[in-house]
């Protein structure tokens, strides 16, 4: 059975779950893997629809991962008609749109029954701090349990309704979220044999300054 298009899935899901807000996030890259953005309030109902709908039966959640989106500004060039020096002209105007940061959880779904896939769904948190919460889809796909724990561990998204939300890779006392883009790892760069890029910049802070030059800079290559 071939998989319907994302537009069809979106339409049927919205019909099945009244009030659900589903957006298609286009992916214009070579993979063309566009995804469905599901609102948090109806996420559980939409996920249940995707799982039990006879035409879809997406019964296999193969992968769950997180994405960190920092606060960013989107620059757009818009052509605006303006009256310049008495005549009408088209002028380029850049508009800036500020998008606040948020975290995403991405689920990859396949169907074992119909042997089709992949359908990508994602959910967004309200922000990157206290409201980094999402509903857990563990009750729909059991395989999400450990992976949601991993996202909680590395990105700091709290999954409401998760049966056992603890850190899974790092120790319990750990307080940071290492996969977030603004994470700074502990400063233990006292010795780096081959530092480069960002590590070089940080390792430099630990290097002792050379008390005197060793004369190597005065050597010229022999003719």
């Amino acid at each position, binding site marked *: 059975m071939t998989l319907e298009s994302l537009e069809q899935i979106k339409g049927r899901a919205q019909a099945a779950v009244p009030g659900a807000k589903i957006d298609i996030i286009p992916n214009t890259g070579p993979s063309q893997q566009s995804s469905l953005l599901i609102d948090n309030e109806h996420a559980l109902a939409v996920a249940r629809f995707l799982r039990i709908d006879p035409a879809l039966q997406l019964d296999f959640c193969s992968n769950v991962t997180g994405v960190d989106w920092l606060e960013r500004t989107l620059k757009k060039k818009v052509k605006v008609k303006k009256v310049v020096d008495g005549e009408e002209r088209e002028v380029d105007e850049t508009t800036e749109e500020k998008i606040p940061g948020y975290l995403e959880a991405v689920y990859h779904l396949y169907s074992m029954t119909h042997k089709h896939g992949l359908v990508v769904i994602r959910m967004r948190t309200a922000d990157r701090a206290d409201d980094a919460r999402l509903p857990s889809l563990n009750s729909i796909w059991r395989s999400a349990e450990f992976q949601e724990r991993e996202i909680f561990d590395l990105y700091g998204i709290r999954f409401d309704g998760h049966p056992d939300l603890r850190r899974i*890779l*790092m*120790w*319990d*006392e*750990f*307080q*940071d979220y*290492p996969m977030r883009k603004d*994470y700074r*790892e*502990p400063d*233990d760069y*006292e*010795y*780096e*044999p081959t530092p480069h890029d960002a*590590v070089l910049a940080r390792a*430099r802070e630990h*290097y*002792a*300054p*050379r008390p005197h030059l060793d004369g190597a800079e005065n050597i010229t290559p022999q003719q």
Partner: protein
Amino acid sequence: MSEQIDEGLRSELQRQGIWVTSMQDLYNWGRRSSIWPLQFGLACCAIEMIATAASRYDLARFGGEIFRPSPRQADLMIVAGTVTKKMAPQIVRLYNQMPDPKYVISMGACAISGGPFKEGYNVLKGIDRYIPVDVYIPGCPPRPEALLHAFMELQRKIDEQKLTGADRAEHLNAAQPSEFPVPAFGAHDLEPPANPDVFEPPKIDRT
């Protein structure tokens, strides 16, 4: 022994059927011929360690085939693989539970320095930050021949250890520590990130 008995006289006696040795040589010969490693592996290096113990490379030729599942019965700790920060306290604890004399082989790039994961947030940058290491073997992972070489180096080291005198082996010196503090899980990193009594970062001058 070679310091106490003339080498020529010794071989002359041996030709006549008289074998002369010293307590120290006999003791060290026994120790180096039955080094029992602690049976644990951390990552892919452990596969090479298993291969070393299996029939093709046969660590038994050197007396090291008896891998003990308890630190109480082990002489040698082969740190085979990546030491994550979550695992490091357990490694130190196992080392503390081993009886003296005890030796450590740091096997592979990860156990030496963190290897390809050195700049990561969850990998210890070398087990020598917490416990003293006797032999380092580079490689990713080192081949079984390299582990055998490290084993032979360790045997050579044991052979040369003195039982008496000021330069006697470290484990015979009561002042030498045999247990090392176990690092605690901190909010951002292990605490302390390194044991200053054991580990001192190499000093490099770079501008």
